[in-house]
């Protein structure tokens, strides 16, 4: 489940500040080559070159992600990753990552449930972003009969569309499931557009369709706000594809000579690719949690790896809310408390008082055996600064059976794991 070492090394190289201008210069060079190819009537070569540029531009940032994106920074994504980790490694498969709760559903947790290895599941945001690039490349060919126009639309869409700052890649990275939705919708529309009547109707109203998509995109952006355009990006890509044909027709009509038209188109491709978003995309400032996901947090990973190896899959780990999500996501074990202590969890926590009592008695070094058994809690996880529970505490007078805590793991960073054992 740990990040691939090769990708990690690549990420380290890419993470150097000086590499960003180099990347951008390389993308501009590729855009120039593509424009040249287009001007010389090689539309496929132009598209291939820009696809390569897109792959390079996205890949540069994506290889830097070394831990699940959004884990610990975005509440919804944190729960998704925690659920996915538990679905992949814990037993039984059913149930939420917080013991006794209902499981949340997301693309990553569904994939983990379906048996996709977690090491692949953590790459889903990156893969979906790259697949978006693929979708943008092939989508115009599904809608536009003229291959050259389809290539033209694909080249523009690859850069992020006709409108600057509307590239969909950041949104896709944070919501990979949107690719499935966008793909399905695009497929349905493409199938509907196959019929000659629909195609003719579309041809008649293409300006109106484009205008409607643009208006929809602006309204979506107005309501959504933020730096990632989300649905607005998808609509603007749609508008870009719808406008590709009239745009070419307008250029042909205005410039008369085919050579001049091709040059103007090439210039447009160059400007759009260099301006619309992909080239200037910098997820460090635009994708929440990206910076955090670049650090591999090896100090925390060591005890989590130990838990993954040594704590039974059916066990539940008691930890403070700050460690709940990493334990569930990266060690694949259920936890007693949700990651958020502010009540912002998706569903209310069942039996909060019994959980609190188990946590409190465990903190005092005398966990109630009945409660530990009821919640299947077998281990206590403590982070730096959290005090050790007292050892060898006598059984209280109430006579309720208690458990002992045995230290099983401790490292230089003061992460500790105790096992709850019978006295």
């Amino acid at each position, binding site marked *: 489940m740990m990040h691939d070492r090769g990708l990690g090394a690549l990420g380290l190289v890419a993470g150097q500040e000086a590499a960003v201008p180099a990347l951008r210069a390389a993308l*501009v060079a590729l855009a120039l080559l593509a424009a040249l190819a287009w001007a010389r009537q090689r539309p496929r070569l132009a598209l291939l070159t820009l696809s390569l540029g897109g792959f390079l531009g996205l890949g540069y940032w994506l290889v830097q992600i070394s831990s699940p994106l959004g884990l610990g920074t975005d509440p919804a994504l944190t729960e998704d990753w925690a659920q996915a980790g538990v679905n992949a490694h814990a037993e039984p498969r059913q149930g939420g990552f917080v013991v006794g709760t209902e499981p949340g559903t997301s693309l990553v947790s569904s994939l983990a449930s379906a048996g996709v290895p977690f090491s692949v599941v953590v790459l889903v945001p990156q893969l979906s972003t790259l697949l978006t690039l693929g979708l943008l490349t092939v989508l115009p060919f599904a809608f536009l009969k003229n291959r050259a126009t389809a290539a033209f639309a694909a080249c523009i869409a690859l850069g992020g569309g006709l*409108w*600057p*700052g509307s590239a969909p890649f950041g949104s896709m990275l944070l919501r990979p499931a949107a690719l499935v939705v966008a793909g399905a919708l695009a497929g349905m529309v493409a199938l509907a557009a196959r019929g000659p009547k629909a195609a003719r109707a579309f041809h008649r109203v293409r300006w109106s369709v484009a205008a409607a998509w643009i*208006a929809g995109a602006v309204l979506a952006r107005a309501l959504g706000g933020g730096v990632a355009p989300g649905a607005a990006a998808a609509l*603007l890509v749609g508008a870009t594809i719808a406008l590709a044909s009239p745009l070419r027709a307008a250029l042909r009509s205005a410039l008369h000579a085919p050579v001049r038209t091709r040059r103007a188109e090439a210039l447009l491709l160059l400007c759009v690719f260099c301006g619309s978003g992909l080239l200037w995309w910098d997820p460090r400032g635009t994708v929440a949690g990206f910076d955090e996901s670049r650090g591999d947090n090896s100090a925390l990973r060591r005890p989590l790896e130990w838990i993954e190896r040594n704590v039974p899959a059916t066990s539940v780990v008691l930890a403070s809310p700050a460690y709940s999500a990493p334990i569930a996501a990266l060690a694949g074990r259920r936890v007693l408390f949700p990651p958020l202590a502010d009540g912002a969890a998706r569903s209310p926590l069942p039996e909060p008082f019994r959980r609190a009592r188990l946590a409190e008695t465990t903190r005092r070094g005398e966990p109630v055996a009945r409660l530990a058994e009821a919640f299947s809690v077998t281990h206590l996880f403590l982070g730096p600064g959290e005090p050790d529970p007292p050892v060898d505490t006598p059984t209280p007078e109430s006579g309720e059976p208690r458990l002992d805590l045995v230290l099983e793991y401790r490292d230089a960073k003061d992460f500790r794991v105790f096992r709850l054992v019978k006295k």
Partner: protein
Amino acid sequence: MLNLFGFNLDGMDVDRWLAAARLVFTVAALLGAALLTRGADDRRAGRIVLGIAATGHLLAWFATMFPLPSVYGANGSMDRENHLGWANVVALGFSPLHTSQVHHLHFEPVWPLLVALASGFNVDRVNLVFQWAPLLAGLALLLSLRSCWIRGMEPSEHRNVEAAFAALGALLLIAVPGDFAGPFRNPWALTFLLKPNHALGLVLAPFAALALARAGTWRTRLVAGFVLQLVGWAFVIHMALVVAGFAVFAALSWLTRRSERMKDAIDVGTAVGVNLLIVSPYLAMLALAYPLLLEGDASLRVSPFSERPFEGPLRLGALFLLSAFGAWSSYGKDGRFGRILASQWLASHLVWQLFPVLGLLGQAREQDEAFYWCRFWTGLFAGVGMFRAMLLILGRIRENRSPLAAGRSAVAAAMALVLLLPSLLPAWWDPGTMDQYFVAARQPLPDWIAEPTRFVRNNTPPDAVFAGDRNYARWIAAYGARRVLISDALNLPNDHLKRMEVENALLRDGPRSLLAEGRDRYSIQFVLATSFPMDQAPEITLDLLAARAYLVPVYDREFAHARVMIFKVRYEDLP
């Protein structure tokens, strides 16, 4: 917590507020486009487009300003705090030729004077003037561009709409959504909201172009020079950039227009010469007050491998191409004024391409201003270019039936408006996530700054000058409305060595003669220090200062973040 409009901000959902502003603009723009498609003559269509631009600017300004408990940029922007300090001291009645560093010659003297005038020389109204100035500057830009375009361009059936699109583009296409992540951030916010005095330069620049376009006699050339120097007083960098544009105009004319080249060269030479003559006292002030040619900091160096050269033009994507088309068509068919404006577009990009060279010499100063200038002209011509492209398409498409042809201008305007809409600033502006100054200004001023500066404002005489913590000095000027000896946030005055000597004597119990010089030459009355070590005197603690016989504590408060003390300087024992 109240905002400057007097409304309570407690419990305000800022995200919804901002979304509502975007939504209102989007709906207004779509309604405007729908109205245009119903047919309108050139004049009416122009008014609709201009109305949408004005509504957009107003909504973006209001959406940003309303949730702020203080003036925009407070609590986060050194520039804004310096501007507040400058305006405060002029509003108190001190010379507009000086900054908030006592007797320090100013490099932007007009703006503080205008603010002081607008506030009625009431320092308590300065914040309000800063609040409203961005709105007024934006609206003035719309009117200035429209008016100059209509007066300067060759008569045509689309002149009003083109003028409106030029104004709309210059104001609302100056920034694109991704700008906030770039090195120069959002040009609209940093020009209109943060530095409305620079926006004043943009307002005046079209008038300078128009005056040159109309120059032909010695009298009109003198007028052109006079108008140009007004730009200089508003913002000297814009004056230099306008002059660069005039030079490109003359050069292009020399290369391409044999019949007019001599006249153009004489017109430009005279206007620029007259301008330099009139503005020379100001230039002398700059030369005297600032060490302009000294080696600067690392930010003045630009790597030859940086992405700066293509950042200016290409971050705008297709808008850049549209602007090139707009500028090209203006140069070809819009007469002298069109050629001058198109030359400004070209010059702005040429100047931007100079920066890597200047960066190699360590002199890449004011890159942000050159970048915004570049964006201003690109936005302006992108608006025009889009409209003209739509006209072209409507004119050439075979299906273009007669009802459309009748109101072609309005239909082209509607199409251009819809196509530009995703890029118009008010449609995507989300300062909560895109503007660090908005986020900072949403927070109340930290108590260790707010309380002592309130004390300074209310309990010290208006002519008091403060020495001591140079970092705190900008807050003394901005929020306490008092002058200071040296501020880390401002350029060093040319007599900085003398000031440092006096300051050193005050802090380290130096010679009495220097203390007396501080009193007589700089009117120092107070010393402010905090528990943070001062850069210039790290060993001097608050207790040490309190032990000085000539320093009498008048304010001493321990805050969670720092302790702040204010001392009155006793001059009784001095000669």
